[in-house]
Each structure stands twice: as C-alpha cells, then as structure tokens.
C-alpha cells in the first residue's frame, strides 16, 4: 500500500473510531428508546466481551474443538471457576496459565 494510501486509511480509521463510539451520544437526542431496552443495554458490554473471547477459545484451531482437552478451553474454564470462587484476579490468571501450560505439554 502506498504512503498516501496508508495515511488515508489511518485517518479514516480514526474517524471510524470517533463516529461509532460517539454515535448515539451525538445524534441520540432524537431517538427515544423504550425503558426496558435502555435498561437492557447495561448487559451489552458483558455480551460483547463474551462474543469476542469465546470464539477465540473454541475456534483457536482449524476446526471447532469444544472438549476440555483443548488447552484454551480447559484453562479458560479453570480461570473462570477460580474467579467465581476466590474473587482474585491474580489467582485466577495464574491458575488458568498453569493449566494452559500443563495441557499443552500433555497434548
């Protein structure tokens, strides 16, 4: 890609960030959402993060791989369970990482 093309692409991407993230903050005054939808939107970030993470766990390889023997799935389940149990990020992450390394050595 040419230098000018790259400049244009980057400038365009900055505008895309700004336009999508401030979309309803800028034009939303004309839109009146029902209260239940407005309240329901607080679940949006959880859904978005789950939707970003889960496919990377189960579709990591060439084919879908849903068993616990998939190092990513096993490690993620352990990290999630540890977080529920101990409520401590460092414990959960080190536990998950340990399982990830162990399962990769076995596989």
């Amino acid at each position, binding site marked *: 890609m040419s230098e000018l093309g790259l400049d244009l692409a980057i400038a*365009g991407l900055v505008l895309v960030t700004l336009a999508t993230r401030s979309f*309803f*903050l800028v034009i939303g005054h004309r839109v009146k959402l029902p209260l239940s939808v407005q309240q329901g939107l607080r679940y949006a*970030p959880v*859904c978005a993060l789950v939707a970003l993470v889960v496919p990377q766990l189960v579709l990591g390889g060439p084919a879908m791989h849903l068993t616990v023997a998939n190092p990513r799935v096993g490690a993620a389940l352990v990290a999630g369970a540890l977080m529920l149990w101990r409520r401590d990020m460092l414990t959960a992450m080190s536990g998950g*990482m340990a399982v990830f390394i162990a399962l990769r050595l076995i596989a």
Partner: protein
Amino acid sequence: MSTLQKILNHRGLRVLFGPPGDLALARSSALGQGLLDFAPAMIATGAWALVTAVATVKIGIGLAHALAMSALVYAGSAQLAALPLIAAGAPVWLILVTASIVNLRFVIFSAGLLPYFRDLGLGKRLLLGYLTSDLGYLLAVRRWGDAAPGPQDRTSRTWYFLGLALGNWLAWQSMSVLGIVLADRVPDRWGLDFVGILALITIVVPSITDMPSVAGALVAACVAIVAQALPLKLAVLVAVVAGVAAAIVIENARARTGAGA
C-alpha cells in the same frame, strides 16, 4: 485547607478540575476512583495493546505509521481486522467498512451511555465517546448498578467514567509503544494473546451475577460461535444484539412473576 485541596490548587490541575472547592474535590475524587477501579483491567488492555502493536509492525508498515495507528485509532479489534486488508493492499473504503462493522458494538454502547451524558456539551460527548472501551463501559455499568439511567449524579458519573477511560488509555498507549519498539523480540509462542484472554475472563466473570446476565452471556457466546460464518466480521454485533435481547426477555419475565423484585 486540606492537603488534597492544596494539591488541587496547582495550576495544571486548576485547568483540569476547575478552581479549588467542593466541585473540584468531587471531580478529582471521582476521577481517582475510576482510575483505581480500572487498575486490575490494565493487564487485559496492556496485553491486547502489545499483541496489536506487534501484529501492526509485523505487516511491515513503518514505525511512524505503526505509532500513529496505535496512538490515534485506539481500537484493538478494529485494527486487528484492518491489518490483513492493509497488508494485502485492499482499497481504503473496504478497510474502513470492515473496521466500522467490527466497531458497531460501540454504537450500541453509545445508546446505553446517552442517558448519563445527554446534557453535556458536544465536545465533551465526543471525547467521552472516543474514549469508550469495552472494559471501561463494563466497569461503569457495574458501579452504576441497576439505578435508572438519568442525569442524577452527573458530575461524579462523568468524572468516574473519565477515570476509567484514562486507565484504559494509559495502559493502551504505554504498552503499544513498548510493543512497537520491541516487536521483533516478542516471539509468538509467549502466548501473549492468551494472557489477554485470561485477563478478560477474570474481568467479565464478576459481572455475570444474575439470571439476565447469565442468559445474555450464554446466548452471546453461542451466537458468536455460530455467526463466525457471517461475512465482514458481523458476528460480534449479532451476538451482542441477541445477548441483550435475551437478557431483556429474562428481566421482563422475572419482573412479571415478581422474582426479580
């Protein structure tokens, strides 16, 4: 005059928080609380910034373009989607359309944030919008809880959100620069992307606390997997819409039967 108020009297901070007084105190403490609450999430943002920066350098755009992209575009998932297109020399419009679609979840977030920030001036709304991140919005919602969104507590909410945003911004920018400088020395087998994934999991799990959020997360996960077949990276958007819809349905059902009361 308390120590904090003396600090707030510093010229640089007067510009940021306004003249010392109760308002400046409220603003600065809300900003500080936001920064503090975001601190654990900096691991996740930092890991993703590093992964994104390394990937950006490895497609062979120069140092200046890589720095400009990470510093200004400020959107990990959109950048990762744009990189292969840039590497392949795709037309600029296609790169922008793809990035827009990856970013559509933020359009939904902006609708969720509008009730809190609708009274602010245009410039401030643009700034808060630009600085919105998945993690920042998640943590803001967790603190604001179930209370009906509205203009109450506007000062503390705005500055708390800004504090969260600042934490995300600092983690992203510092680790981006580090990633760009060290790109050639970071081997793929470190599994840095997996560190980022684990960090995200530990941040999301405490937000899945009731039936609507469990339903939303389950539906979003299933739809995201099935929707991978959709073109143009539409999967995340479809998953968010489906997940939020499921959460609303469960919430309404519980409200009707009184279980949610």
